């Protein structure tokens, strides 16, 4: 493996990271919205959200990417591979985040809601000051685990042309026919990238665990 090969593959890291963060951001925002629909009490909203979540999770990610890129991309709008990948992965992340947040909501001790209501706190302060901080702490491990999975899933974007790690590795392998080292390096990069996320999550988890009501 010469340095040029290595540099090319490493050049994909920034795309991998940016795609992961973008999809995560889109997913958390949309996911919170979907979760709100499911917990709103309105049966229609709940059903719509539940169906959306089910469909988004049942179809393999790559198909969503293809549908968005080849479907919308070539017809109605012009979108770049990155945009298609971000939207596709973002929507799937939203579906998973909705479920994670929903699970975390029920894990936040019921007494917290009751105490806040008993203190006559207005709804938005209740959310911001009492529930949201605990919600974040409770859901952090699941979100971190999902983020690590998402990092690896961004490799799919290579098939529609996003120049991230897997794309570069395929490119180098086709040029040099040295698939063994190329893909070993690519795999190693994914593993290496997930380590700091796992550590950060465990550190944050330990610090925050003390502040969650039991």
């Amino acid at each position: 493996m010469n340095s040029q090969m290595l540099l090319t593959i490493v050049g994909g890291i920034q795309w991998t990271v940016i795609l992961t963060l973008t999809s995560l951001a889109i997913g958390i925002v949309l996911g919170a919205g979907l979760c709100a629909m499911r917990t709103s009490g309105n049966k229609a909203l709940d059903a719509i959200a539940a169906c959306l979540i089910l469909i988004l999770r049942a179809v393999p990610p790559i198909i969503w990417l293809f549908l968005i890129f080849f479907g919308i991309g070539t017809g109605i709008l012009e979108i770049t591979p990155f945009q298609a990948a971000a939207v596709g992965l973002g929507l799937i992340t939203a579906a998973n985040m909705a479920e994670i947040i929903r699970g975390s909501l029920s894990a936040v001790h019921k007494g917290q809601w009751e105490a806040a209501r008993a203190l006559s706190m207005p709804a938005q302060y209740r959310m911001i000051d009492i529930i949201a901080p605990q919600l974040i702490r409770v859901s952090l491990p699941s979100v971190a685990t999902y983020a690590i999975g998402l990092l690896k899933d961004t490799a799919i974007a290579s098939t529609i042309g996003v120049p991230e790690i897997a794309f570069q590795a395929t490119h180098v392998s086709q040029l040099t026919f040295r698939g063994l080292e190329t893909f070993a390096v690519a795999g190693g990069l994914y593993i290496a990238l997930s380590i700091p996320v796992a550590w950060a999550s465990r550190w944050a988890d330990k610090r925050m665990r003390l502040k969650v009501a039991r």
Partner: protein
Amino acid sequence: MNETIAFWEQILPQLLQGFSLSLQVTGVSLLFGIPLGLLLALGLRARNFLLKAPLLAVIEVGRGASVLVLLQFVYFGMPTAGLTFTSFVSVVIAFTWCTAAYTSEILRAGMEAVPQGQREAAQALRMTPMDTLCLIILPQGLPIAIPALLGFSILMLQASSLAFVVALPELMSKAQLIGSNTFQYVPIFTLVALLFAVICIPATIVVGHLERRLNRHI
């Protein structure tokens, strides 16, 4: 709308052929991968670190590397080391590795969920560690792990859609072939999505029910 349905009728046989291959490759990988996962989970209980280390490496790589890269590593990389596999075999190898790595964690958690008192009772009755494992722990731990294993199997079926990058003529491959001939990408991939949904949505619902039933007994 009618054109789309007519088109779908036309391409469905081909797509189903591919889908059958997707199901086969997933099934075979699970068949090999889950028992291997069990062996890995049992092997991790060894005290000797020298014995555990290679197992841990296998698990970390199987879980840490992207499935796509794993596929390409086996299909394109192994020939450099002198081992050439057909695309079907390559996919099975990569998926079995991935399955074993993830399921070892699922099974380990399942076994750990068996109450400690069960082990103590078996110890007090002088049952051998092997008997305790086979007759007491596994019969209780495996059922606990089943919902998670099924959920993982669904994910593996979805992952088979990536096998086209290593030239396996499964569903996505067929879809792309038709697409490159007809350019009707949206109808084609919509049908592909429907095919996956038809299997995965009921499967997900069933797993959800199983999980709820299991939690009620605990």
